[in-house]
């Protein structure tokens, strides 16, 4: 993909469809894990200069819990899970069956490992679905997490892209549930070269199916 071009409507559509497939796999995995119905809805796919991405997706100074992992293999990318703190505490208390007290801002080590496990479940099922469909090797790193201003976390994530990519594809997914407290966002970022690889392999798929 040329660095200066936009996504065509068709490219955007195939990326949305592909993401919805991955999101479906993630939703069923997390629903099973927490025993509540959760849907992951793909909101948008955009192609922006790296420094512009942060401003478009989050309220910059709100304190949130961000889980971050890198994707390697045939493509280079990142997956980012952002939970409002209220949701992150709700999830760890639900899974640990323990309430460590209201009004706190820090997680215990055990709770952090629960959140990382949630991240593994969501990202692992998403990537497996993608990699099975595309026939590409996608390897995920273990996740790291921080609880701080949304923009500060995103800033560090974007810097990992900024030295090698002018623009990046952002896939924006939200968590939806009847359970009011379950809210969150899930972002996938791929640099231009990786987006190219994904789109090429999708094209191959469509042609083979004809």
């Amino acid at each position, binding site marked *: 993909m040329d*660095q200066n071009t936009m996504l065509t409507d068709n490219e955007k559509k195939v990326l949305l469809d592909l993401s919805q497939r991955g999101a479906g796999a993630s939703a069923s995995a997390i629903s099973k894990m927490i025993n509540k119905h959760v849907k992951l809805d793909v909101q948008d796919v955009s192609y922006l*200069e*790296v*420094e512009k991405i*942060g*401003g478009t997706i989050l309220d*910059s*100074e709100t*304190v949130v819990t961000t889980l*971050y*992992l*890198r994707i*390697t293999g045939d493509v280079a990318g990142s997956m980012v899970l952002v939970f409002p703190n209220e949701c992150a505490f709700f999830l760890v208390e639900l899974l640990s069956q323990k309430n460590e007290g209201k009004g706190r*801002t820090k997680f215990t080590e055990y709770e952090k490992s629960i959140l990382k496990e949630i991240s593994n479940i969501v990202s692992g099922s998403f990537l497996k679905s993608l990699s099975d469909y595309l026939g590409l090797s996608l390897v995920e*790193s*273990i996740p*790291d*997490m*921080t*609880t*701080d*201003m*949304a*923009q*500060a*976390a*995103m*800033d*560090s*994530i*974007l*810097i*990992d892209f*900024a*030295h*090698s*990519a*002018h623009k990046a594809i952002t896939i924006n997914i939200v968590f939806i549930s009847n359970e009011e407290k379950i809210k969150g966002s899930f972002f996938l970022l791929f640099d231009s070269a990786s987006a190219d690889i994904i789109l090429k392999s999708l094209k191959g798929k469509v042609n083979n199916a004809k």
Partner: protein
Amino acid sequence: MLNSNEILVDMASFSFGSSPQILLARGLGSCVAISFYNQKRKIGALCHAMLPDSHESTIQGSPMRFIDKIIAQVLANFELKQVKPNEIEAKIIGGSNMFPFLHEEVKIAPAMGERNVAMAKALLKEHGVVVIGQDVGGNYGRSVRFNLDTGIVTVEKKI
């Protein structure tokens, strides 16, 4: 919401202004903000850079991503106002490492915060700008408020 005298400085950009303006940079992680101030004229600039060195990059992105380019640009703006580097005082904020596990142990990508701060210091020294304050490093985010009337820089943390 911003007041009419407040200016938000986004990632990979800088803003040049004068009293009574207030320059803001929000949610700095490994990014680095540098405040530049000339007390006598009450003019200054705040920059918000992402990476240390434009020479290391192979891509054609915004040059304002890089500390070397952004410092040169800010000093050119001061020069237009007949302010020399030795009449400017600088403060450095940010350069933290939000994901130390991924960056230091798994080494999935180089940790840039520390390098950003080192580069800012080295280049300011080279240009002859004196650094009179800093709040850098750690594993937490910062927001910056730079008052061009007083030259005071306030750093806010949320954690």
